[in-house]
C-alpha cells in the first residue's frame, strides 16, 4: 500500500481557473470488481462478450425509465458554467474532469445511438461509437466524480450531473465492469448488515467497551443499547461510527444526548448501517434492498422514532428516498406505508437527522452544556455535499446549514465559517464521496480535497482554527487521510456530536 508518487496541488494566491493538463488523470482508476463480488449483486462476473450491445440496451432502458436522464442528455448547451466548479478539475487540471466534459463522454454516445442526427451524420454532431476505449474512459472518469452536485448549482438548466454519473456507473455494472470498493461493500451490507462486515457479537463487544470508556471518563453509566425491543428510538448510523477514529467520538456523543434527555433508544445489529452505497450507481432496487433492513428492524423492534446518525449520503437516501422505497417517511397512504406510519409517532419528523434531534432538545431546554469544555478548540464547519445539496433539516430551506452550526455555537465558544464561496449550498466536496473513498484512488482524493484545503488554510491562518467539524463518515475518513498531505494534523477533523460529547452535562453527576 505504498502511496503512489504524485504532486500535491499548490495553494493559489487567487482562485483562478487552472490551465488544463489533458489526460493528467487518465491512468488513475479504481480496481475492478471480481467475479465473486459482482455475482453476489446479480451483475455479470466480468465484462460480457456482447458488452456493447448490452450497454446500449441498458442505456436505452434508463432513458425510457427516467425522463430526467433524457432531459439531462438533451438540454446541455455547453455554456461552460460548470467547468471550474468541480473540485476534481480544480485539483487535477484534467479537462475531462470538467463536469461538462465528463458528461460529454456519455452524451456523445447518447447522440450516436439515440438521436437521428447522430445516427445519420455522427461526425457532424460529435457522436461517438461506444468502443472499448470509450467504455474504459467512462470507467476512469465516472469514478473521478463524487456525485457532489456542486456543478449542478451553477448549471443554468439545472442538470443533475450526479444522475449522469450514476447512470454511467449503472450501465458499467450491468455489463460486468463494476467497481470493487462500492460493490464489495454492498455485498457485505446484504450479507452481514453493514459496510464493514461487522458481525453482531463484535458490535456488542465494541459497544460494551464504549460503555466502560464513558464510565471511566465521566463516572456515569451511559448505555449503548443493541437490539432492544420497545425502545422509543431506533438509531441507524454509518458502521464507521463503530470502528474508526474520529467517527466513534460522535457515536459516544449520540449516546450521551439520549442519556441526558432520558429517551430510550437502541441500535440494531441487523440494520447496523445508515450508509447506502446503492445510491452511487443509482440502482434503486439495490438501494431499496439496503434500506429495507431498516424498515424491517423498525417494525420488529416496535420503535416510535427513527433517527439517522452523522452520514451524508445516508441522510440523502433517508430524506429523499426512504418514503418511496420503504414506506418510511411522510406521504404514503398505501398499506405498505401505513403499516409503518401507524407505529411511528406522528409528532416527530420521520426519519429525523441526529442534528435535528439534538437541536430540538436544545430548544426545549432539555440539554445543558459546559461550553468552556470546548475552549481548546477553534471550530469551523465543513458542509457535506449530500446533506447540503440534496436534503434539508428542520422546517425551512437552509435548515441543513443552520442546525449543525447552531448546535456547535451552543456547545462551544469559538466558531468561524470558511469562505462563503466554499460552504453551505456551494460547499466543496471532501474529495472522497460517492464511492471514491478507496486507497487506490488516493491521488484523486488528495487532489480533489484541494479547494477545501485552501479554504481551511485561510481560517487556520486568520483565526487559528484547529477543529473542522463535519457530519459525514466519508468526510471524516477522507480528511483523516488527506489532511497530512497538506501539512495538517489528521486529528483536525471530527464530528459535530464529538463537540456535543465534550460539553454535554449528563445531569446525574451528584
Amino acid at each position: 500500500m505504498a502511496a503512489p508518487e504524485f504532486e500535491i496541488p499548490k495553494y493559489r494566491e487567487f482562485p483562478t481557473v487552472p490551465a488544463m493538463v489533458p489526460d493528467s488523470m487518465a491512468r488513475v482508476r479504481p480496481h475492478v470488481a471480481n467475479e465473486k463480488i459482482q455475482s453476489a449483486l446479480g451483475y455479470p462476473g466480468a465484462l460480457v462478450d456482447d458488452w456493447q450491445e448490452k450497454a446500449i440496451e441498458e442505456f436505452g432502458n434508463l432513458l425510457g425509465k427516467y425522463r430526467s436522464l433524457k432531459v439531462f442528455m438533451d438540454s446541455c448547451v455547453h455554456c461552460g458554467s460548470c467547468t471550474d466548479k468541480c473540485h476534481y478539475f480544480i485539483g487535477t487540471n484534467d479537462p475531462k474532469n470538467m463536469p461538462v466534459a465528463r458528461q460529454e463522454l456519455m452524451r456523445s454516445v447518447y447522440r450516436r445511438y439515440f438521436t437521428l442526427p447522430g445516427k445519420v451524420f455522427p461526425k457532424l454532431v460529435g457522436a461517438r461509437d461506444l468502443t472499448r476505449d470509450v467504455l474504459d474512459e467512462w470507467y476512469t472518469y465516472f469514478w473521478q466524480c463524487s456525485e457532489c452536485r456542486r456543478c449542478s448549482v451553477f448549471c443554468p438548466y439545472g442538470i443533475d450531473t450526479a444522475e449522469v454519473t450514476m447512470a454511467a456507473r449503472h450501465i458499467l455494472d450491468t455489463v460486468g465492469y463494476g467497481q470493487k470498493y462500492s460493490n464489495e461493500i454492498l455485498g457485505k451490507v446484504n450479507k452481514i448488515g453493514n459496510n464493514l462486515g461487522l458481525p453482531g457479537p463484535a458490535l456488542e463487544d465494541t459497544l460494551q467497551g464504549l460503555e466502560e470508556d464513558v464510565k471511566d471518563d465521566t463516572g456515569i453509566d451511559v448505555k449503548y443499547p443493541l437490539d432492544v425491543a420497545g425502545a422509543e428510538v431506533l438509531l441507524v448510523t454509518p458502521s464507521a461510527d463503530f470502528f474508526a477514529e474520529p467517527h466513534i467520538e460522535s457515536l459516544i456523543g449520540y449516546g450521551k444526548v439520549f442519556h441526558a434527555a432520558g429517551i430510550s433508544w437502541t441500535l440494531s445489529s441487523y440494520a447496523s448501517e445508515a450508509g447506502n452505497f446503492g445510491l452511487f450507481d443509482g440502482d434503486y432496487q439495490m438501494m431499496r434492498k439496503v434500506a429495507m433492513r431498516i424498515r424491517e428492524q423498525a417494525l420488529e423492534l416496535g420503535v416510535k422514532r427513527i433517527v439517522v446518525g452523522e452520514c451524508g449520503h445516508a441522510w440523502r437516501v433517508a430524506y429523499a428516498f426512504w418514503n418511496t422505497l420503504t414506506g418510511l417517511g411522510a406521504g404514503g397512504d398505501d398499506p405498505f406505508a401505513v403499516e409503518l406510519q401507524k407505529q411511528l409517532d406522528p409528532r416527530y419528523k420521520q426519519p429525523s437527522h441526529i442534528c435535528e434531534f439534538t437541536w430540538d432538545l436544545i430548544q426545549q431546554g432539555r440539554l445543558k452544556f459546559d461550553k468552556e469544555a470546548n475552549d481548546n478548540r477553534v471550530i469551523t464547519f465543513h458542509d457535506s455535499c449530500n446533506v447540503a445539496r440534496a436534503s434539508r433539516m428542520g422546517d425551512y430551506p437552509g435548515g441543513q446549514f443552520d442546525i449543525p452550526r447552531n448546535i456547535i455555537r451552543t456547545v462551544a465558544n469559538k466558531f468561524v465559517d470558511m469562505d462563503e464561496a466554499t460552504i453551505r449550498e456551494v460547499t466543496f466536496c471532501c474529495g472522497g464521496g460517492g464511492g471514491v473513498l478507496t486507497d487506490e484512488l488516493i491521488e484523486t482524493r488528495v487532489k480533489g480535497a484541494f479547494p477545501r484545503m485552501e479554504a481551511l488554510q485561510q481560517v487556520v491562518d486568520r483565526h487559528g482554527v484547529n477543529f473542522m467539524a463535519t457530519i459525514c463518515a466519508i468526510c471524516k475518513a477522507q480528511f483523516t487521510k488527506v489532511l497530512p498531505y497538506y501539512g495538517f494534523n489528521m486529528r483536525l477533523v471530527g464530528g459535530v456530536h464529538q463537540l456535543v460529547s465534550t460539553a454535554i452535562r449528563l445531569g446525574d453527576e451528584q
Partner: protein
Amino acid sequence: MASIEVNGKSYETDEEGYLINLADWNEEVGAYLAQTEGVTMTDQHWEVINFLRDYYNEFQIAPAVRVLTKAIGKKLGPEKGNSQYLYELFPYGPAKQACKIAGLPKPTGCV
C-alpha cells in the same frame, strides 16, 4: 490473481496485496508483507499483529481502532494506548496496514 512468494512457497493475494486465504498466514508471510509496506517489525509491532489475529479469530472482523488502542494500552502501558502510537508503528493507518500484515481482510466502508 496476484501472488507473493515467501521461502519458495506461493501465496494468493488480492490486487492490493491482502492475503486471500487467511489460513495461509504465518510469521514469515507477515514479515514479508511488512517489508512490502516498508514497515520494520519490532516486538511492539508483533504485539499489535497478534492481538489483531486473536480478535479476528474470535469475532471474524478486525477490532475497532478504539478497542485496539485500549488493548495495547493495557498490555504495553497507558502511554501507548492511543492511536498516535499505532500510527507510529503503522504509518499508513493501524486498521488497514496492520490488517494486511496480519493476513486479515481489509476493513471496508467509510474508514
